[in-house]
């Protein structure tokens, strides 16, 4: 049962030599063989490459390298198909990248390797990270390990499902409007979006550059803190990464919430919230109070405008970022008689419906005559949303809310109505607009069917320590994180 160990437990076993890196990697591959034909989390996995990395980790362990020097030595960690892993395929779950293989490692991948991890697999996602269900993958839909008639969330659905199904010890995904926190909530694992600039975006295929951030999916909060430690910090290759010191994150996991003030935003108590989700989050808030936190009502007055603001800013940035998929330098190509025809045909056949929808929307809001009315106005509303958060954080240390309005929905339930799909992100989106950090962790289950419910904790900019402290204290005094999915 190696595959069911938490990352921190695996590190203990590896360092005591009770288990080898090869056994850990083989356990993940065996679990994939057992369940991935039902979950469909992985697009592909290079087994030889994974086992070679594991063997190298075992040789390092045998030669006396310790986990003090290489904190993730021998730990298998899987990647969303949006992160560059040298020599491995990268498709962003799109047809347009064809047979692309990454010429270099993303900074986070280089950091994982430097820490000794066994980096493997390509995890399914909504095409170019655009979606909330993985139904927008050009290849197949990933299914929820708790109920395979339901979606795992998105866009990082493969990341969440693979961790919930115990096919890896942790995974890395990306979050532009909730793409880490929402699938983590729906699959019952821990997903963290660090503060904008905390983690380098070099080697992350860009969707919306001012909102994108890489973060970990893990089986518990401590594992998330360990992984955040490994990937954080300034990178000269990403000029938006910040020169903030990286604290010792696990040191903040004290279990004690005394003296902390936790905010409840009255604007987040909206209609449309599933009664079981509402009840679970209210119980979680009372529990946080019983652990010593003071609960304070705060106001985020512009919350109602976050989804509209997001869909202007994110699509505008996407229309510019995805211009690079032109059929010239890499990826699939559909020939044309001139470059314009080649570009248009390549993009018309290579992109899926949601990506086309967003590029066209983004092009429109930036186009001559509409820029001021849409894009510039959205940037100003973004200022107001950010100011709401900064003002709230003057009186509280963190804000809690549901991560999602409902538990996992059925495959096909929302795929015909893009606007309904967008509105499933109402609680996660403003965090990306404001640039602060957020985490989702399990806080209960619906009764029938039994589906995970996520609690979101939003921290101040570079306030990961306090956010992790709150999440960890809650988790360790509740039973939810010990529940295992039927396909786990």
């Amino acid at each position, binding site marked *: 049962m190696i595959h069911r160990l938490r990352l921190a437990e695996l590190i203990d076993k590896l360092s005591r030599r009770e288990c080898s890196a090869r056994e850990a990697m083989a356990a993940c591959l065996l679990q994939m063989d057992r369940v991935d034909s039902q979950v469909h989390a992985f697009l592909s996995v290079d087994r030889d490459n994974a086992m070679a990395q594991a063997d190298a980790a075992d040789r390092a362990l045998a030669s006396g390298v310790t986990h003090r020097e290489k904190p993730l030595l021998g730990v298998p960690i899987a990647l969303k198909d949006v992160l560059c892993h040298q020599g491995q395929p990268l498709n962003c779950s799109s047809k347009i990248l064809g047979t692309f293989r990454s010429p270099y490692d993303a900074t986070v991948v280089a950091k994982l390797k430097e820490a000794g991890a066994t980096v493997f697999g390509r995890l399914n996602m909504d095409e170019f990270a655009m979606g909330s269900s993985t139904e927008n993958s050009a290849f197949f839909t990933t299914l929820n390990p708790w109920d395979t008639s339901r979606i795992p969330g998105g866009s990082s659905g493969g990341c969440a499902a693979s961790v919930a199904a115990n096919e890896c010890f942790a995974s890395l995904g990306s979050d532009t409007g909730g793409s880490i926190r929402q699938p983590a909530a729906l699959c019952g694992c821990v997903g963290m979006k660090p503060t904008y600039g905390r983690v380098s975006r070099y080697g992350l295929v860009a969707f919306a550059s*001012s909102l994108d951030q890489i973060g970990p999916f893990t089986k518990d909060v401590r594992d998330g803190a360990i992984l955040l430690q490994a990937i954080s910090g300034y990178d000269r290759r990403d000029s938006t990464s910040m020169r903030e010191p990286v604290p010792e994150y696990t040191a903040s996991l004290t279990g004690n919430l005394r003296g902390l003030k936790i905010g409840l935003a009255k604007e987040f108590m909206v209609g449309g919230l599933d009664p079981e989700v509402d009840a679970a989050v209210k119980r979680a808030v009372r529990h946080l109070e019983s652990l010593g936190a003071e609960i304070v009502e705060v106001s985020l007055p512009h919350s109602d405008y976050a989804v509209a603001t997001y869909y202007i800013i994110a699509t505008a940035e996407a229309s510019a970022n995805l211009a690079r998929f032109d059929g010239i330098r890499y990826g699939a190509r559909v020939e044309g008689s001139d470059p314009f025809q080649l570009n248009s045909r390549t993009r018309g056949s290579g992109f899926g419906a949601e990506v086309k929808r967003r590029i066209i929307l983004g092009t429109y809001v930036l186009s001559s005559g509409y820029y001021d009315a849409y894009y510039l106005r959205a940037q100003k509303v973004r200022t107001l949303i950010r100011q709401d958060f900064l003002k709230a954080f003057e009186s509280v240390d963190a804000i809690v809310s549901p991560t999602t309005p409902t538990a996992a929905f059925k495959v096909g339930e929302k795929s015909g109505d893009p606007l309904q799909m967008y509105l499933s992100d109402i609680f996660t989106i403003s965090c990306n607009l404001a640039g602060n950090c957020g985490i989702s962790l399990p806080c209960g289950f619906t009764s029938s069917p039994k589906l995970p419910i996520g609690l979101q904790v939003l921290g101040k900019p570079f306030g990961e320590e306090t956010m992790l402290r709150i999440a960890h204290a809650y988790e360790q005094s509740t039973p939810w994180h010990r529940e295992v999915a039927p396909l786990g």
Partner: protein
Amino acid sequence: MSDFNIQYVARLARISLTPEEEARLGSQLGNILGYIEKLKEVDVHGVEPTAHAFPLVNVTRPDVIEPSLPHEEALRNAPAKAGGLFVVPKIVE
């Protein structure tokens, strides 16, 4: 949005669409633009726009020549190449 011309915007975006896609995307985008209209309710008078969450400006580094991606690596994923170059359709008559 009566003045949203899907054909014009798709052309700007360099995306060829089938007539069915034009009809479907056009109506879906009409709904989304209708929703986005709610931003007009917000008083943004005197508010500065935010392009980035943190005030980073003019991040520079010394202009030093360093090793970069080797030529053959940069071309390895090209859909059409010849003589160490990308092949594209004729541009100039």
